[in-house]
């Protein structure tokens, strides 16, 4: 979330799209109802289904799954053509005025630079044009045909209401009514907040859907504003934290990135990531990249990392592929290219697409290690459960180790909620039996490996033998020690320009501004610096006071970065530093104090006066929000609608007859998986997976209370489809895709209605995902038997939300 849960109450309009927070985040959703009741806000839901969120919405529309970019792109065109944008904001705080290179273009559904053989783009032309002064050229009038604003206008001019309607299935009346309500939020003192979840991410165009939302919010002047923002309602209790800590194939902690194999030179690696301002005088905070990087290397390697060996640059693995994401990994595993795999609190048999392929892949491993509090399906993938898991154990040679871990109640430490709050928790009781915390398992396993390398020698043992490991009990590192380590400390005295000591050696750092690139500081995750300072554990703070009445409780827990609760909050004030409206005062310039003040910690240099002209988006080299993504996305600088890889309609109505532009041209799909895609003739219905309010993933089917309230697997089928195929409520049905099938009880409902796509009637089938073959609920079928093995072009997040099925009565 750019904003936070309580801040939703400050919104004037709430757009819920790609999520169903009333059901999936019920307690967070109370702040939506608070906004409706006390801020006269309206809630609009746009979803394929009538959801529990829709049930309390003032306005709603039903959209065909996977077509959100058509709706949002059309909205952008409407905002521009009717001149309903927050003009001062757009002109100053976005890149609307910046000029784009002459050779950038878009034709037949493809951006300039496409190479079909690699399904990728040469992004050279996707850049701003640089002037002779070394900074980006701009046109304040927004009239230059090569400025971002005009290119944006041109790009979405194709997204007329009729076109949007024929792609999304929403009627033109509904589209225009909702666009009009959203456009009213372009007034400076009004804000819309956007709430989304996996209904946006789990598409082959997922990242671009979210970008499209951010672009809408920039045009409306809603980023950095209380009651505004683009708010990812994340799915797990610490999925934000694990992302922040970089536990992803290409990342290091704090959104730093590993080098690829071509990046052999340390200096070039650092320089590429050290973003210097491209508009004169801007903050461009990534210019400090090397300070964050060197501090991480010191946290990991201590004295072994020094300037002479490039801070052990070669000890970090380098990437030979763009990503070693889970789809790539299970593709390789299914071909026998992996020998070992660890699942720490993760249930891939249930969670990864094309379950048959996942079973094949796991069966080819030599060893599998499962660390979990619960008896997961993955740990028993080799065991026959009849039709629920039809395998022959004797044919599976994988050695499986199952290690019992603590659950939250037995564990101490911090987790990061969707609003970037690090909240500390304590252990209430010891774990059952001989279960252990993950920290101890990882500690002991590492020390056993280290001992083997010390005794036997082995390949490239340097990082193993030199890894810092100064924990009180070496094979059982404690949460407080680890938290202090990722916060960071001074290794030598730090001094200011006059030579005064500002931080003694050994002291905890108060913030990432103290980090240095010369090895005097160590910090395991720079964005978390400030969470455990000399003043103690800030994550355990419990002052819930709200002195400004904005719902901003700075004394409760600690948020990264630097306890700032709304990102880019300098944008909540106009160019002169004054709040945009009386109800939206949040962070503003106080001339007497010579500082930014207000309800939040300024996400901005505190003493940089408005007259200095620094702009709010301090992580961007231009200081402004990007309507034009430049080279940061792999599949285009502007989002474009492409059909899901499995779609009930056979072409992209924006590009009829252009086969290359039917699906996302830059999305990766392996040959065998392309063969496993269904055709509309055989699998005619759009299908989508989702959660129910009574359950959490595959965990709560192990909890008795949840299993009692929602015991049995079902699928949702609209009345019209039920009539068509002769199904009554309560009948058993078989739902099949080209990859597999599930059987479940049919709930025949008015919540799913057929929609017209062009001249074709399309039905949706709703597939809740919570059942499996372990647990105390009734056994069910893992729904990923159905889903396709293809992901978003940028993140490789699988396309779980849009695929096609057929439904038969059992």
């Amino acid at each position, binding site marked *: 979330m750019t904003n936070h*849960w309580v801040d939703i109450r400050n919104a004037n309009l709430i757009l819920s799209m790609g999520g169903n927070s009333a059901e999936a985040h*019920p*307690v*967070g959703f109370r702040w939506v109802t608070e906004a409706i009741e006390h801020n006269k806000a309206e809630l609009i839901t746009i979803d394929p289904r009538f959801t529990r969120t829709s049930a309390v919405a003032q306005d709603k529309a039903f959209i065909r799954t996977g077509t959100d970019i058509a709706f949002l792109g059309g909205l952008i065109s409407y905002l521009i053509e009717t001149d309903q944008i927050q003009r001062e904001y757009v002109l100053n705080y976005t890149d609307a005025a910046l000029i784009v290179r002459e050779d950038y273009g878009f034709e037949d559904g493809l951006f300039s630079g496409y190479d079909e053989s690699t399904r990728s783009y040469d992004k050279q032309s996707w850049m701003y044009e640089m002037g002779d002064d070394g900074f980006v050229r701009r046109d304040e009038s927004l009239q230059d045909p090569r400025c971002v604003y005009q290119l944006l206008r041109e790009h979405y001019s194709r997204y007329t209401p009729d076109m949007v309607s024929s792609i999304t299935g929403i009627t033109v009346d509904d589209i225009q009514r909702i666009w009009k309500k959203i456009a009213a939020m372009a007034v400076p003192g009004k804000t819309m907040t956007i709430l989304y979840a996996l209904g946006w991410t789990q598409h082959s165009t997922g990242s671009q859907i979210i970008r499209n939302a951010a672009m809408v919010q920039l045009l409306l002047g809603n980023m950095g504003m209380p009651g505004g923002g683009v708010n990812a309602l994340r*799915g797990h*209790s*610490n*999925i*934000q934290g*694990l992302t922040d800590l970089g*536990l992803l194939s290409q990342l290091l902690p704090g959104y730093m990135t590993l080098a690829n*194999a071509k990046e052999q030179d340390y200096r070039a690696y650092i320089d590429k990531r050290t973003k210097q301002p491209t508009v004169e005088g801007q903050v461009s905070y990534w210019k400090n990249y090397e300070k964050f990087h060197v501090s991480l290397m010191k946290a990991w390697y201590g004295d072994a990392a020094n300037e002479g060996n490039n801070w052990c640059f070669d000890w*970090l*693995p*380098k*990437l030979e592929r763009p990503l*070693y994401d889970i789809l790539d*990994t299970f593709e390789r*595993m299914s071909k026998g290219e*992996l*020998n*070992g*795999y660890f699942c*720490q*609190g993760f249930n891939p048999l249930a*969670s990864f697409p094309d379950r048959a392929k996942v079973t094949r892949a796991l069966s080819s491993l030599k060893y599998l290690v499962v660390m979990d509090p*619960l*008896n997961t399906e993955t740990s028993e993938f080799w065991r026959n459960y009849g039709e629920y898991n039809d395998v022959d154990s004797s044919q599976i040679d994988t*050695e499986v*180790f199952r290690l*019992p871990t603590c659950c939250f*109640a037995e564990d101490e430490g911090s*987790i990061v*909620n969707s609003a970037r709050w690090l*909240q500390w928790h*304590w252990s*209430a*009781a010891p774990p059952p039996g*001989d279960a252990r915390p*993950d*920290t101890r398992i*990882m500690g002991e396993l590492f020390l*056993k*490996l280290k001992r*083997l390398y010390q005794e036997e020698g082995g*390949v*490239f043992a340097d*990082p193993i033998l030199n*890894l810092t490991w100064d924990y009180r009990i070496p094979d059982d590192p404690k949460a407080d020690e680890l938290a202090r380590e*990722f916060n960071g400390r001074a290794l030598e005295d730090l001094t200011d320009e006059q030579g005064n000591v500002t931080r003694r050696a050994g002291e905890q750092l108060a913030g990432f501004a103290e980090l240095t690139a010369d090895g005097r500081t160590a910090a395991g995750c720079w964005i*978390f610096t400030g969470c455990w300072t000399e003043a103690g554990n800030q994550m355990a703070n419990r002052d*819930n006071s709200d002195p400004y009445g904005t719902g901003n409780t700075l004394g*409760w827990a600690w948020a990264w970065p630097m306890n700032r609760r709304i990102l880019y909050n300098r944008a909540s004030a106009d160019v002169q530093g004054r709040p945009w409206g009386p109800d939206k005062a949040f962070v503003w310039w106080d001339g007497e104090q010579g500082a930014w003040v207000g309800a939040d910690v300024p996400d901005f240099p505190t003493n940089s006066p408005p007259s200095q002209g620094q702009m709010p988006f301090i992580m961007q080299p231009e200081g402004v929000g990007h309507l034009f993504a430049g080279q940061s996305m792999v599949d285009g600088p502007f989002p474009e609608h492409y059909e899901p890889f499995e779609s009930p309609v056979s072409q992209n109505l924006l590009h009829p007859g252009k086969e290359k532009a039917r699906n996302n041209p830059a999305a990766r799909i392996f040959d065998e998986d392309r063969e496993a895609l269904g055709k509309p003739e055989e699998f005619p219905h759009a299908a989508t997976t989702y959660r129910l309010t*009574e359950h959490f993933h595959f*965990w*709560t089917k192990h909890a008795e*209370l*949840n299993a009692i309230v929602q015991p049995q697997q079902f699928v949702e089928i609209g009345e019209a489809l039920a009539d068509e195929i002769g199904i009554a409520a309560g009948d058993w049905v078989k739902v099949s895709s080209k990859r597999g099938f599930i059987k479940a009880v049919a709930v025949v409902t008015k919540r799913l209605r057929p929609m017209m796509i062009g001249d074709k009637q399309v039905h949706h089938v709703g597939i809740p995902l919570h059942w499996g073959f372990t647990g105390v609920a009734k056994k069910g079928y893992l729904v990923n038997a159905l889903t396709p093995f293809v992901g978003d072009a940028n993140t*490789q997040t699988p396309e*779980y939300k849009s695929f096609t099925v057929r439904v038969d009565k059992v």
Partner: protein
Amino acid sequence: MSINVTRRQFFKLGGAGLASSSLAMMGFAPEPAEASIRQFKLTHAKETRNTCTYCSVGCGILIYSKGDGSKNVEQNVFHIEGDPDHPVSRGSLCPKGAGLLDFVHSKGRLEYPQVREAGSSEWTRISWDEALNRIARHMKDDRDANFVQRTAQGETVNHWTTTGFLAASGSSNEAGYITHKVVRNLGMVAFDNQARV
């Protein structure tokens, strides 16, 4: 009129529904006898602050357990409720969170390390030492056999692609950090968590 409910009991009532909390607000407090049973039940419990482990709202919870922490005393969690001080959740829990106690005590909880040998159709209980020794052996053998120091083009890569690791978005930052530190320094790149899916 004096109100004979403590703040916690008041919030507890609030959790039962708007009707009861409105009644309490208007002074129709519950009978003292009824309230004191709850009071008695929690008085000798250890109260531990924690955060709900399910979605990312991060609702504050209070865990009540018995036992004073002595070595020979059984510790047992017997009640979990919302933390009324929490600025987001204000004491509420959703239908998922309301069942947290049953997650802690689930029949599906694992208690001992186990191994399923190749081709077998059952689990065998083993000690932690044996489990971790065998795993470490597998890892070292695979790493030593398949670690890539240089590509065919002579580029230094120092990576290990034949063993992969999925980390847990339900675990703490501290577990995540130590996991990253270990996994990356073994050279692993096939490394993801639930944020990937």
